[in-house]
């Protein structure tokens, strides 16, 4: 019996071996909640329409508003998509399934990374959708393939960072309803940045915050990469600031969520 057992089992369970299985699971779970999926896909499109047609007429920035707002909507789309990670992680912790994974010696990193990878896949789909709608509404990127790829890469890095942050949040709260709250926090970061209106139009006390938070440099960099739009800072600086923010959030969130996971399962 023991010979057969040894043969049936590998010598080590590494995250790299369980990650594809855990990602497949997270993606299947995403597909099985069509309402959440529909919200994640339709909300950014509706926001795009709202900003371009409802608010766009009132915002005078010296260029067509759709050109200005597309990076912002892409960012908003990214945070709403990433925020669902908090809910799914929280649901996993509340149910018995985490005990099953633990008894199978699945590392906590694999479980969380599976959710984050699924979030990246979902966001690729919704980003493409939002970009297609933007083009339909008159957005024309003045860019080249290399810059488009760089913009896409930065957006994915941002999604990975906020997804891990959302995962940490999902581990910190006890109810999935509360986990959803991270979305409002992240949306506020987008609204109080240069994503939708130039920072100079904001009241003085908000400008300091708006200039020194992650959403602004990410938006500015996207804007510069996609169109070289007015309002963009010298974009080299914005890029490094954006990368530093994303890298920092990513590193802190991964470490934090591992610590929280250990505490929750201890």
């Amino acid at each position, binding site marked *: 019996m023991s010979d057969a057992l040894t043969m*049936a089992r590998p010598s080590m369970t590494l995250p790299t071996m369980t990650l594809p299985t855990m990602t497949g699971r997270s993606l299947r779970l995403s597909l099985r909640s069509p309402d959440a999926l529909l919200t994640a896909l339709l909300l950014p499109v509706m926001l795009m329409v709202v900003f371009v047609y409802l608010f766009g007429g009132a915002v005078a920035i010296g260029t067509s508003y759709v050109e200005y707002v597309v990076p912002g909507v892409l960012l908003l789309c990214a945070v709403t998509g990433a925020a669902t990670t908090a809910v799914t992680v929280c649901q996993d912790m509340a*149910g018995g399934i985490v005990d099953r994974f633990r*008894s199978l010696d699945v590392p906590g990193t694999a479980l969380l990374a599976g959710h984050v990878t699924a979030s990246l896949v979902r966001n690729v789909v919704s980003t493409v959708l939002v970009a297609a709608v933007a083009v339909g509404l008159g957005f024309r990127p003045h860019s080249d393939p290399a810059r488009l790829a760089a913009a896409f890469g930065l957006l994915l890095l941002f999604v990975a960072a906020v997804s891990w942050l959302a995962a940490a949040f999902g581990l910190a709260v006890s109810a999935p309803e509360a986990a959803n709250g991270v979305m409002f926090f992240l949306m506020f970061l987008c609204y109080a940045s240069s994503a939708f209106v130039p920072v100079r139009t904001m009241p003085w006390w908000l400008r300091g915050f708006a200039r020194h938070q992650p959403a602004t440099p990410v938006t500015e960099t996207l804007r510069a990469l996609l169109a070289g739009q007015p309002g963009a800072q010298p974009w080299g600086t914005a890029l490094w600031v954006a990368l530093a923010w994303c890298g920092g959030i990513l590193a802190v969130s991964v470490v934090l969520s591992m610590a929280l996971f250990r505490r929750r399962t201890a």
Partner: protein
Amino acid sequence: MAGFDVVRDRRQIRRRISLTGQFAALDAAQTGEENLRMIARLAGLPRAAARRRAAELLDQFELTDAGRRRVGTYSGGMRRRLDLAASLAGHPSVIFLDEPTTGLDPQSRLTTWRAIAGLAASGVTVFLTTQYLEEADRLVGQIAVLDGGLVVAVGRAAELKRRVAAQRLDLTCPTPAAFGQVSQILAGRAVHLDPAALTVGVATDGSAAQVRSVLDETDPGRDLVASFAVRGATLDDVFFALTGYNQEVTHV
């Protein structure tokens, strides 16, 4: 455990044990087949082997028809069976089952019992806790009786029964008043009390001398006991004799 040191070889041991709690550890939004395939993969089986293992387990637990449905649509009994099947996906050598049949319908209970008996027969060590002493009697080799968290007795079912007494003497009283008196006289010694049937049971070795002395002691006036019967002890008797309260039983 399973030839490994519990502290030093923690990872090796995790790979060889399997735990099934009282609540199903499954994804409700995945189908039964998907759950089993995922768990088999996580247990280290290659893709094709995981698919075969899932089909095998669905068949063993009579869930083949339900395998393509989401677990969310399953009845409680089906979920518990799938949960148990999931515990077996990676061929564990030691299995912990926490009240595997609590709240199951008779059909599911029989299927589960059959599976557990089959596992034990195949050389897997099964650790199970239960409140059903019938279950322990049927399935279990070594029994440990727990009272308030302490092991109060360990042994095979037959040994435990013998320890308390091989047999039980049931005294049936003619009136509730007589039942009250008899149970008072035998207070502390009774292993069985059934007010509805007016029956009090005490442990006995079955000898005529002992039966006579119990009758003389409880019924000197010859009007408190209407009839008596001597029967083989059940695990329930063992349990009440050992604990006096309704506690949990663990067995190996």
